[in-house]
């Protein structure tokens, strides 16, 4: 009797919790769903009173409006942002991985000092060095270049820390055989360590890509010419360009959130694990 009752309460609690969970998930996804629906609606439907949930005709008009904006600013910014983010991911993985490897496996003078020098950057808030970073890149003649978008965010103390931790957990026997065979450190790094690092590369690579894709503050200070405008700068200006034409604004925003979401879905298992790892480091 008692066991049956316990089972029933357990089933009921599971059902109640499932309903709550589904409701929260729905609320969390609703703004995105609403944005997508709006991007297919015409001007009258999008802010219609009373509400129109679904568009009468699923129109691609808004997407056309955004992409054919005369100067091609939107399409161009998607391309440039993608280019910047991809180059940044490659550079960032390579450079931070090399540093993590050196700190995990090699011995050299000033190792401790250089280690602190690298990870200290984790604790310096961007807002403190925002203006002086601007002064530095200004003096280096980097304003309105691809380099100013890519380079400043490439090295990350956090990523170095994360890779070092990962390499420390790999067994030493891994490279010993190769070293006896006379392989140098660089060869070992490229031939043995990189192929074994897929999972941290996915977590940090995806994080870096999303960070670059979403960045707004730094581009808004350093890029003023339309040539290199980043997608979030364009999203910011959609409201002033299209005013109350929310269909077009939502179409532009919807396209702009797709790349990070697609990336997330491809690597979701790794990324969710990464969230836990980074939070509990």
């Amino acid at each position: 009797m008692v066991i049956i009752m316990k089972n029933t309460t357990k089933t009921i609690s599971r059902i109640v919790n499932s309903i709550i969970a589904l409701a929260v998930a729905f609320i969390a996804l609703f703004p995105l769903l609403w944005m997508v629906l709006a991007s297919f609606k015409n001007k009258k439907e999008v802010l219609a009173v009373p509400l129109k949930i679904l568009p009468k005709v699923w129109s691609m008009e808004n997407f056309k409006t955004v992409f054919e904006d005369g100067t091609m600013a939107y399409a161009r910014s998607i391309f440039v942002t993608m280019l910047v983010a991809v180059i940044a991911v490659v550079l960032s993985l390579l450079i931070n991985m090399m540093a993590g490897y050196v700190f995990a496996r090699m011995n050299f003078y000033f190792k401790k000092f250089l280690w602190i020098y690298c990870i200290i950057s984790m604790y310096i808030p961007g807002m403190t060095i925002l203006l002086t970073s601007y002064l530095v890149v200004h003096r280096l003649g980097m304003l309105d270049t691809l380099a100013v978008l890519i380079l400043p965010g490439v090295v990350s103390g956090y990523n170095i820390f994360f890779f070092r931790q990962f390499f420390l957990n790999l067994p030493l026997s891994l490279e010993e055989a190769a070293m006896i065979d006379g392989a140098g450190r660089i060869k070992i790094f490229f031939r043995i360590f990189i192929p074994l690092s897929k999972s941290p590369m996915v977590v940090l690579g995806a994080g870096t890509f999303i960070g670059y894709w979403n960045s707004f503050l730094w581009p808004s200070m350093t890029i003023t010419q339309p040539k290199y405008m980043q997608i979030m700068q364009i999203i910011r200006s959609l409201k002033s360009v299209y005013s109350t034409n929310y269909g077009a604004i939502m179409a532009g925003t919807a396209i702009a959130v797709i790349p990070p979401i697609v990336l997330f879905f491809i690597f979701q298992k790794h990324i969710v694990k990464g969230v836990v790892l980074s939070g509990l480091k």
Partner: protein
Amino acid sequence: MKHGKKDHNSITNLDKRDMKIAYIMLFPALIMLTIFVIIPLIMAIQKSFYDWNFYVESIFVGFENYKIIVNTVYFQKAVVNAVKFIVLIVPLMLLVSFGFAHVLKNLTSKMATMIKTAIYIPGIISGIAASVIFIFVMDYKGGIINQVLMQLGFDRVAFLNNPFWASVAIIIPTVWLGLGGNTILMYAGLMNVPSEYYEAASVDGATSFKQLIYITIPQMKNIFVLMCISLTTGTLQMFDIPYMLTGGGPSNSTLTPMLYLYNNYRDTSKGMGYTIAGAVLMLIIITAINSVVFAVIRSEKTVEG
């Protein structure tokens, strides 16, 4: 006496040959950190003691800039607003993610994974895009929130025109973006609590409330502290959402420190020294808050060792 210690860190001949390679592999990271983090940091600290702007020679003024910034009404206002947002957002986020982690714990693991994925999606969207979506959702006339409020018999809300509602309008997308990540963390922490503790407690007849107070919360203390710190420092640096939604208004009720500094940076006609002093002050405050994390980690190590 010191020999033992020296041996521990000794550098062998093999290392010496490798050393050059070590420095070469470290070089790109070091040079970029130096240019884009360390030099700007040193410049910021140095310039905070000078009266300067883009067009005028620098004059050393000692701590004068710090005196000016702490007495600047807008900066004070921004700091007070940041504290207000911290007091509202941090407990709200902790409570919601803690509660929702419990909900997830009662689901089958397959469903829990599905829900975690769903609620994490907003977390990868930028603050700028999230703000644009919420501007639309919160539109005074045709926005869905106001239409639902009308249907339920309430008045429309002009979200961005009144100090109270403007703060609410900023908090909603902020929580929306952060909910997934924080819930995943809480859930991981919750699943780390050994289930034997609960079993033993139920045998002793402890109510679920007592289990919460005496088992769950003490066991998850570290996660609470770490999340509290990162939420606090994150909220202190809030920028994208208030910038997009309110621009700091109405009447500076949502002006954040970051927004204040940014607006000053853009105004090149003004002296920059005291703005930089404000930025350095924020560094000091955030470092002080972060040092709590180190204290917790250290105390943990002493307990374990």
